């Protein structure tokens, strides 16, 4: 029973109350459930692991241990697999298909401010500066980087799928 309780506390979004375990184990007495929970806490928290289970807001909740915060933060900062937000992905798509392109042009296409998305993309090195546009204000021109091609497994920009190809796919189904 403890193993299942541990798994449930792990998957739960909110602290899990003892009564909720009662629903999962209807045949067990409330007393038995309380005892099992106490034993789980004792054994889980005694092991030298990365998580612990605490009683929070009248329920049980799994969190990392505070002493590892620094390393966890270090991991979160460096993880390369972090997903781009939809806003960033859209900005990236505009840059990929319309390059070289200025921030104002991206704004015009997306219909919303894109500077923070652009910042993220520059930090991730998916986008780079190509030069300046020779118009009033000489705005910076952006384009996709070599990293972008690697990231999306493309040989060259000519490998990007076209809108027509997607339309073709939709047409095929009819």
């Amino acid at each position: 029973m403890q193993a299942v309780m541990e798994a449930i506390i792990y998957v739960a979004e909110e602290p899990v109350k003892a009564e909720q375990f009662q629903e999962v184990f209807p045949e067990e007495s409330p007393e038995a459930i309380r005892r099992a929970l106490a034993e789980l806490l004792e054994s889980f928290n005694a092991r030298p692991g990365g998580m612990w289970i605490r009683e929070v807001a009248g329920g049980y909740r799994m969190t990392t241990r505070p002493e590892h915060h620094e390393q966890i933060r270090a991991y979160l900062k460096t993880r390369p697999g972090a997903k781009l937000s939809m806003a960033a992905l859209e900005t990236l798509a505009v840059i990929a298909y319309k390059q070289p392109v200025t921030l104002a042009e991206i704004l015009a296409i997306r219909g919303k401010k894109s500077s923070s998305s652009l910042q993220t993309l520059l930090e991730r090195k998916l986008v780079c500066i190509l030069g300046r546009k020779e118009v009033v204000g000489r705005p910076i021109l952006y384009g996709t980087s070599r990293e972008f091609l690697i990231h999306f497994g493309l040989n060259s920009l000519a490998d990007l799928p076209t809108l027509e190809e997607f339309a073709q796919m939709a047409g095929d189904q009819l």
Partner: protein
Amino acid sequence: MQSGEDLNQDFRPETEAGGLTIRLDVFQGPLDLLLHLIKREEVDIWNIPIARITEQYLEYLEIMKELNINVAAEWLVMASTLIFIKSRMLLPREPAPENAEETEDDPRTELVYQLLEHQKFKNAAEMLFTREEVENAVWNRPPDEVLEDGGDVIAVTLFDLLRAFQEVVRRFESQRVMEVAQEEVTIEQKIEDIRKCFLVHDQLQFSSFFTAASSKRYIIVTFLALLELVRLREIWLFQQQVFEEIQVSRIKESA
């Protein structure tokens, strides 16, 4: 899961709203039907009684037509392949030169390899199905506070767009009573229509462009017109939330 045994239930045509759209639940394509027939007849794959199998295949095609199932081109291609093989089998065979492989000249050989190849990937698909079952039994739930917040407006990818389009077509298909002959609209005319809409409105629901649709052609033309306007940067599409109705908005001219 359609394992070999389930296939023995034969046809399970499903009638949808209005009795017009019928889907084939069991057979996915002509190769699947042939595999089914061969298994049911318990015949040797290397010695398919082509006349009998062809006859049965054509019977199924007849049933499909009677049920108003839209028979895709690949079904007809396979039918003609079978008939061709059958006719080749009827021709008197030239005496095989000595030492020659017996199957070398067999007109069925290519089809057999195609069937074996297809069965191979059906088996691979079953393996994936089993693995998916196992993976569906586990959860990975990282704590909430670690998750990146998704931002305010979630943009529509082309796949979201295509899905919305598919949805419109499906709705249209299930509602249609009869395809009324309609004046043919061109994409250029449709683009002008949409432009006129946006003279009055700033924003419209994606689906509203299709409510008046009375033919599949009209839907396709409208969809392509919308895509063209997106390309021309006159309109853009967005959602407030994932799965919410897609909105079409005019891009305001910058001063």
